[in-house]
């Protein structure tokens, strides 16, 4: 274009003769210039061609890592809340129908469910799609049979996708192959966007002409008359600005693309490239992801009315947004259906039936993706230790986590419900009350749920990981455990008397009991159960603070606590997550297990890249831990946490410890049943005083969680080196079952009290071990 201009300009207002010679010169110049232009154009074309091929054949898209929740296992004998199973299936986008004839469908009845699973290629083995009949009896799975009626011992559902790790441009997509496209999707796209698709050479002259007319009429550039090929070129290779220059580049590129690749190849790329919506900062690209985003279903399960909706969205994902503009979206969908029928792709009956269907778009809130920012935060932190960011956001890694959406839902509900009721009761001082929670399986060390704040869907300050607060009495089990290792027994009498410890700066540490009363000589287990500060200080100073530091480190506290006397009463600040690793070790009988959120990472093909296996290391003897577990059960049965049993059944054994920091700024509870360990922190972000203690706040959240979770009862196993003896509660002397004020208490063999209470002399004792000892 530019090259012709000088010739035109120089033609004006010159003499004929002069101009003749000039003209021929100019003509030659023009010829040369044209030739040069042709060469440049040719080189340009070749360059474009290389570009097109390189990008089309290389890795076309940066694929975000996909993060999955744990897959739900189904097996006979399993305790499974039916409502929770239903939620799981809904989260996976299963349709509840009368006849589960295809994968992704469920027949739901009162005592059984027929689930046609989709199957999933797990890294360890393939889980094929199956038609399972799951029968329930009360809250248990009674039996599972397959379509041939054979008993199925175990089956896994697909894992719910809980999030991704996105590149900077925030493009997200699920790649699909052309053969995964549901029926009518291709037809709908071609009919509504580019009817000549299969006949043109990448561009449609008729389309361009039509667009020209529109552009000329409106006086500016509004319409592109794009073919699907051009749209792909536009999104895939070019920037999004609407200029004529870009348009001119688009045409040769579209022709080249069409020349090199088949219509199907181009269409497949189109299906994955096209922009179809916006989820916050995340751009939804491609039909695979759009299907999940709008219907929570895999693309191959979509029906005509859904397909028509997605095809209609291409024209204006924001203008026709089915969530914000349902009436526009429906109009557009019905137009697509009309065109399909007019073109003979579908029958009139099909069209009418599809038009009657609602849009069927799921609520954005019901999607699991993006629903667990706190847990995902933990997963990302662990991943970043091993993988560079660009691998995480572009290689399509698959990350399998142990997040249990059922436990997570219960945890979030327990926290928000309890905070609401505390706010109702205490009013303004706790208007900004916040909390953090960590829930694990104490035997496996897997993190099942993580709550970072009152509003669990809000991605912000992750209190479960980052709120480091003084732990108060949560530290005490470490003090008592260290004492037991030093030879104390549960009945050793500890002084609960005023104590003053001189500090290096000249001041003194003078701890007080919560009730401001000193209780005299108290058996060790009771001092822990009632959380007496003075006796703990006496005990801790007697064994030495260094022993407590050592114990905390062995239990799993990674940052070395400062060895000040105030450590004994929990002046050290820790996050709920750090505290959880210590209590995890206590719940697991002295075997420390690193807390794991990630099970496995694979590449895009499912090949294992890294694994986070179950590891243990015994840090405290099972005998010593057994004694502390007894004392921690005393806390929940008769101590500071006994309010638990106003809500939990007496048959459920749980153990734990309350914690309240100085001036009542932090409310803590850490405790466990057989298969659930949870740490709860409540407090104010600006560190203000609370109108309640650990038992008045965090314990309520914990109890609420356990009433929902219905965990298995904690059952301590009696190690060989432990014996249970009857002792008198007041004095700690050996006694007998028939006596008043006695109880059975575990002792490390050889540390039993030597003296007998008076009562035991009058009647025979029934102590088995005592008898055996004597008999030897």
């Amino acid at each position, binding site marked *: 274009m530019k090259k012709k201009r000088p010739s035109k300009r120089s033609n004006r207002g010159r003499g004929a003769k002069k101009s003749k010679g000039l003209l021929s010169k100019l003509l030659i110049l023009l010829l040369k210039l044209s030739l040069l232009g042709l060469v440049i154009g040719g080189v340009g074309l070749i360059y474009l061609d290389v570009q097109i091929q390189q990008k089309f054949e290389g890795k076309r898209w940066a694929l975000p890592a996909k993060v999955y929740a744990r897959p739900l*296992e189904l*097996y*006979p*004998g*399993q*305790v499974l809340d039916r409502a929770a199973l239903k939620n799981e299936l809904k989260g996976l986008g299963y349709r509840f129908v009368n006849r589960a004839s295809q994968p992704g469908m469920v027949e739901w009845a009162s005592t059984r469910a027929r689930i046609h699973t989709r199957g999933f290629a797990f*890294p*360890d*083995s393939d889980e094929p799609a199956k038609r399972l009949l799951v029968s329930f009896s009360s809250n*248990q*799975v009674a039996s599972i049979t397959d379509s041939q009626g054979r008993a199925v*011992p*175990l089956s896994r559902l697909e894992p719910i996708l809980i999030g991704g790790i996105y590149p900077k441009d925030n493009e997200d997509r699920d790649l699909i192959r052309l053969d995964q496209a549901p029926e009518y999707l291709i037809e709908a796209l071609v009919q509504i966007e580019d009817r000549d698709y299969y006949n043109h050479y990448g561009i449609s002259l008729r389309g361009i002409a039509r667009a020209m007319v529109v552009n000329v009429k409106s006086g500016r550039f509004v319409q592109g008359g794009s073919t699907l090929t051009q749209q792909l070129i536009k999104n895939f290779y070019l920037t999004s600005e609407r200029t004529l220059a870009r348009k001119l580049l688009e045409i040769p590129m579209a022709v080249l693309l069409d020349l090199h690749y088949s219509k199907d190849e181009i269409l497949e790329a189109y299906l994955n490239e096209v922009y179809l919506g916006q989820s916050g900062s995340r751009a939804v690209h491609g039909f695979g992801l759009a299907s999940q985003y709008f219907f929570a279903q895999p693309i191959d399960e979509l029906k005509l009315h859904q397909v028509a909706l997605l095809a209609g969205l291409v024209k204006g994902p924001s203008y026709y947004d089915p969530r914000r503009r349902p009436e526009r979206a429906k109009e557009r969908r019905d137009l697509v259906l009309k065109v399909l029928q007019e073109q003979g792709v579908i029958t009139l009956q099909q069209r009418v039936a599809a038009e009657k269907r609602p849009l069927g778009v799921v609520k954005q809130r019901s999607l699991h993706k993006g629903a667990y920012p706190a847990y995902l935060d933990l997963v990302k932190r662990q991943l970043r230790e091993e993988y560079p960011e660009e691998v995480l956001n572009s290689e399509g890694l698959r990350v399998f986590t142990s997040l249990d959406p059922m436990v997570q839902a219960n945890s979030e509900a327990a926290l928000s419900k309890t905070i609401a009721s505390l706010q109702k009761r205490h009013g303004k001082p706790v208007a900004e009350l916040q909390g953090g929670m960590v829930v694990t*399986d104490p*035997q*496996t060390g897997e993190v099942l749920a993580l709550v970072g704040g009152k509003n669990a869907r809000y991605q912000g300050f992750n209190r479960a990981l980052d709120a480091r607060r003084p732990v108060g009495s949560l530290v005490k089990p470490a003090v008592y455990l260290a004492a037991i290792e030093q030879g104390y027994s549960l009945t050793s009498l500890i002084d609960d008397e005023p104590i003053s410890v001189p500090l290096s700066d000249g001041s003194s540490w003078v701890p007080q009991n919560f009730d401001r009363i000193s209780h005299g000589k108290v058996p060790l287990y009771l001092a822990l159960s009632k959380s007496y500060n003075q006796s703990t200080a006496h005990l801790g100073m007697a064994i030495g603070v260094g022993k407590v530091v050592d114990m905390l480190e062995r239990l799993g506290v990674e940052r070395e606590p400062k060895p000040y006397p105030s450590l004994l009463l929990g002046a050290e600040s820790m996050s709920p997550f750090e505290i959880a690793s210590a209590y995890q070790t206590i719940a697991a009988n*002295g*075997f420390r297990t690193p807390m794991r959120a990630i099970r496995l990472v694979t590449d895009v093909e499912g090949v*294992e890249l890294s*694994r986070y*296996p*179950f*590891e*243990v*290391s*015994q840090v405290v003897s*099972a005998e010593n831990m057994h004694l502390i*577990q*007894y004392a921690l*059960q*005393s806390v929940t*049965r*008769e101590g500071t946490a*006994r309010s638990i*049993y106003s809500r939990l059944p*007496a*048959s459920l*054994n749980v153990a734990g410890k309350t914690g309240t920091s100085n001036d009542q700024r932090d409310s803590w509870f850490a405790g466990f049943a*057989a*298969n659930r360990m949870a740490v709860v922190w409540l407090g104010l972000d600006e560190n203000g005083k609370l109108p309640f203690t650990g038992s008045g706040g965090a314990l309520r959240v914990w109890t609420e969680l356990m009433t929902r979770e219905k965990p*298995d*009862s904690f*059952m*301590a*196993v*009696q190690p*060989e080196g432990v014996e249970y003896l009857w002792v008198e509660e007041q004095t700690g002397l050996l006694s007998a079952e028939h006596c008043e004020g006695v*109880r*059975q208490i*575990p002792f490390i063999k050889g540390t039993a009290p030597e003296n*007998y209470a008076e009562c*035991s*002399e009058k009647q*025979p*004792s*029934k102590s*088995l071990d005592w*008898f*055996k000892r*004597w008999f030897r």
Partner: protein
Amino acid sequence: MTNTFRNFFVLGISTITLVGCVNNTGSYRPPVVERGDASQVVQPAEPAAIGVDVSPGVVVQSSSDNSVAVPVATPMTSRAKNPAVIALLKNASNQKNSGQMSAAESSLERAQRIAPRDPEIYYELADIRRLEGQWPQAEQLALKGTNMAIGDVIMLRRLWLLIADIREQSGNHAAARKARQQAMQY
């Protein structure tokens, strides 16, 4: 001296009731702890998780609201395993034998999530680590197994023999001998 005196005093009365316990026939059920004190803590025995790994370990439930029974060490050699756990252990064994160690590990970890107190699972996990030459972790896993196997003499003997093997292979012969002696106690 006073103790000895007392012991003689009660011997005659208690012998009859105690013989049954000492023999440990497995049929003995200790009397229900009847205690009126509502604030009593006593630790219970092995789990009776519904449907999973129901052990015959005796759980004595008190009639009073707030007390539970003390653990009673009874043999648990015949653990009733859940079919899911049986299937997974079988998978793991096949995978291990065909050299697919990480698949075997995944199967065992699935089993562990279902029945975390089944010592067999820890035995197998330990054995995989042994085959991989990861001696310290192999031994720790086996030790965890012994903690889960309390009262199950057959399993305890197997686990201690495994520990002996692990120590032997890692070159710690003295410790291996100790583990073997421990195994012989069961």
